[in-house]
């Protein structure tokens, strides 16, 4: 390990431990780390947008002749009108442009890319010839999808057949959320493993280099 590497590791280890110190209680080290973190992240955005948007998407193409890009450039600058209450309404134009476009894409893709394919995939033949296991699976999927949809149907009281189906729905939902629970626990532990690995595999060995 070179001395530069050792410094890098110690800096990273210091901030890792400063964040972990919140587990004991809120303290100045955590506050310090938290505020530096907020600042660096904001600074990262500035560097990124400067390069990826202002230079690459606006400045260079405009120099190359795409003068009309001045329009989105102005729209972008209008966004900052938000900061002054008196002219903040101007920023709505820019915001409306982005929101409207996203809405237009979403309106179609949610129906075309999610609702239709998911409906189609649920149209399964029940009791086919492929054997008991796949027949059972088809029934589980079909009953699960329909009863979940009915559970989240609000225009009728959940009584009678609807009530029974919604009841089945809730059991299905609990199984699915149980799976979600298990997976989420797994996710959080993995992240801890990542940090412990860094501390144990890189930081600890650097001690022997120091002394």
């Amino acid at each position, binding site marked *: 390990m070179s001395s530069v590497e050792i410094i890098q590791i110690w800096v990273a280890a210091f901030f890792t431990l400063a964040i972990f110190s*919140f587990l004991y209680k*809120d303290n100045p080290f955590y506050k310090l780390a*938290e505020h530096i973190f*907020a600042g660096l992240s904001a600074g990262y955005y500035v560097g990124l947008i400067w390069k990826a948007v202002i230079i690459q998407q606006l400045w260079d193409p405009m120099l190359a002749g795409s003068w009309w890009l001045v329009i989105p450039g102005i729209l972008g600058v209008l966004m900052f009108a938000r900061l002054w209450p008196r002219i903040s309404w101007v920023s709505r134009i820019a915001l409306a442009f982005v929101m409207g476009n996203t809405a237009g894409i979403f*309106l*179609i893709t949610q*129906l*075309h*890319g999610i*609702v*239709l*394919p998911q*409906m*189609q995939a*649920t*149209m*399964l*033949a*029940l*009791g086919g010839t492929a054997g008991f296991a796949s027949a059972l699976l088809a029934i589980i999927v*079909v009953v699960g*999808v*329909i009863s979940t*949809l*009915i559970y*989240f*149907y*609000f*225009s*009728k*009281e*959940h009584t009678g057949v609807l009530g029974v189906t919604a009841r089945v729905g809730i059991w299905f*939902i*609990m199984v699915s*959320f*149980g799976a*979600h*629970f298990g997976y*989420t626990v797994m996710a959080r532990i993995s992240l801890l493993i990542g940090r412990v690995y860094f501390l144990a595999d890189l930081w600890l060995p650097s001690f022997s280099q120091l002394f």
Partner: protein
Amino acid sequence: MLRHLRIRFLLTLLLTLVADYQFAVAQTSDDIFRVDRINALITFVLFSIAILLYIKWAKEGKPLFIRKIAGLDAVEEAVGRATEMGKSVLFIPGIQEIDDIETIAGISILGRVAKITAQYDTPLVVPVRYPMVLAAGQEVVEQAYIEMGKRDSYNRDIVRYVAGEQFAFTATVNGMMMRDRPAANIYMGAFFAESLLLAETGNAAGSIQIAGTARPEQLPFFIAACDYTLMGEELYAASAYLSHEPLMLGGLKGQDLMKVLIIVSIIIGIVLMTLGFGDAFRNLFEAV
């Protein structure tokens, strides 16, 4: 007149946009109109009509039925318990800004809770993280107290601003819970990782806990740690049920109609597939 012009404008726009200019470089298909996407077009048209019609009806004040969400009974029961015990109720409308629809739903449920606490003079505490949410929350709570004829019991500190980042906010609220030991904690809105910490502390403080959020990764934790949980769309439905706000209500009803159509289509598909000649029907839903 204006309406007529609007339609003319739209048609002209449409025709200019899709006229055949022949500057194709590489053509994937010869048709200008994507005939293969007609199923998406039909879905899109049906969907738009359903939503817009119901919103129109809701605005006109037509009675549109939404069932009462079971979770709302649980909320009322919890507030009732707090009254009996002479303890306070803690309500958190999520940790997001006011432009998040989950926060909006949370605030409208807060209106209902405030009415009950006003009626029985039960202390209510609402910590919020953003000035805009503070303003909206204060407005709703004050309105509720006035409606119940308890203008005098209202004070501006019911909804209070707790500054700070996600975990700092959580730490402060947790402190409040352990100190005041509220009889009921109600969480309605957008929650993230702090859901765990809040629910855990509330549990240690011995409070009844009711939660509602649309975030699927937080729902399981709320279900396991709270006495009742409003899941996903139930949060919006509860809010529409209480506020009768035409956009929310109309949207919800329109979506419900679509759900019926979807369920019916799925069932037809399943029956036809099971009988062995469903492929043609199933292909109607092919997304290309």
